């Protein structure tokens, strides 16, 4: 064997990884934000909707949750422009894909959060004369946020890791950066080891931060 590690080429091209990490985070945050919007709207429609709307939302959720993300990425970036007249760059295409994918997961997260709210709290809201919309805004959504927070954190970290798939359509995020170093220096082990460490550390820091946020809300949840 006798492979001797040499990280110097990685450090020389570190801007590729550093810039890639920044883009990965950006992709995750934007997709999460759009995914939250999709998830919230559809979850609220789901719990208050009729049979047909529920079925339509369930189809979306199941379709996207049970399809490998990489296939969705290919379909949206290469497939869709062939069928309909749209143009977008790889990054936009990936954000759109990841957002819709995240939305499918978050509908479930928010729906189960909404359904987990004790009926008594909703009754209390009705009893003081809140309208359904007011109950949603002041009672159900705040309660749901607290219930859903841990699952939301997990989804965010999953999304962050999923951004590595953007490398298959040459979005210059972290994994793509590692690939670039590999292709240009053939230092495959070093490039991927450093990238892996960067995913790991970033993911861990995010997890730690999110758990802190959750704990802040925990007090209120145990009532």
């Amino acid at each position, binding site marked *: 064997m006798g492979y001797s590690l040499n990280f110097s080429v990685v450090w020389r091209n570190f801007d590729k990884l550093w810039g890639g990490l920044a883009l990965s985070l950006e992709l995750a945050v934007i997709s999460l934000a759009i995914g939250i919007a999709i998830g919230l709207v559809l979850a609220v429609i789901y719990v208050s909707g009729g049979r047909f709307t529920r079925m339509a939302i369930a189809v979306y959720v199941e379709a996207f949750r049970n399809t490998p993300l990489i296939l969705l990425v290919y379909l949206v970036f290469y497939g869709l422009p062939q069928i309909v007249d749209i143009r977008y760059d790889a990054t936009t295409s990936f954000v759109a894909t990841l957002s819709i994918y995240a939305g499918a997961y978050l509908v479930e997260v928010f729906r189960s959060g909404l359904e987990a709210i004790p009926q008594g709290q909703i009754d209390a809201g009705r009893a003081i004369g809140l*309208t359904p919309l007011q109950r949603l805004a002041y009672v159900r959504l705040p309660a749901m946020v607290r219930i859903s927070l841990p699952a939301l954190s997990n989804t965010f970290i999953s999304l962050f890791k999923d951004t590595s798939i953007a490398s298959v359509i040459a979005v210059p995020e972290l994994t793509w950066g590692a690939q670039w170093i590999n292709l240009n220096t053939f230092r495959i082990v070093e490039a991927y080891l450093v990238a892996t460490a960067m995913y790991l550390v970033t993911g861990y820091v995010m997890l730690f931060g999110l758990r802190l946020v959750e704990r802040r809300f925990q007090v209120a949840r145990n009532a």
Partner: protein
Amino acid sequence: MHEPLLTIRDLKKSFGRTEVLKSIDLDVGRGEVVAVIGPSGSGKTTLLRCINFLETYDGGSVRIDGAEVGYTEGRKRRGERALARMRAETGMVFQSFNLFPHLTAAQNVMLGLTKVRRKTKAEAREIAGHWLGRVGLGHKAEALPSELSGGQQQRVGIARAVAMEPKILLLDEITSALDPELVGEVLEVVRGLAAEGMTMLMVTHEIAFARDASSRIVFMADGTIAAEGPPVELIASAEANPRLFSFLARFRASHF
């Protein structure tokens, strides 16, 4: 003779094939305190929940101040906004407190005041402070429900209900979920409200309290009102009413 504040006529309610309420007639006058007692499953809580339309009913009518609560005259269910307006006229205190866990004690009381009564934040804060003081929790205004004992949570629940200045207060077994040593502080608050003339309908298992604090006791059994009358007379007449007698017998040892 004034019209009673609450008029219930021929109220019927079934859950599936189980008839929970079988033609209930009940009047509650202004300032009256009526206690509803009876074995579990007799329909007490359902009766209470029909009065502010947390529960729909299948027949009969519930009127507060002459206005039918849940339905229009043609027995069409009222719209949600109209229902919300009607519900704001009745206060309810729940067995399991049901405080909003993400809001402080003061915010729990303020929510209905600002969103339903359209008070300003400052007005609402003042009213909340007043009522929290009245239930002995002026110093806990900024506490979250999770930081309060059961008795304290229930007193916030009472403050939340009465701050809305309801025409009638509905109390649903409000001490059943409390540790025995916390029951007294909650009943004390109720006694104070009764003394001030608040109209109340309370479902309770505290027979001694019902006897002392209410002007009338209603005994429910199997979805009907099996007996009713002023506390002393009702309890005295129990000998002649086997169901009431056997119900009260269970309490005699411990409460009388």
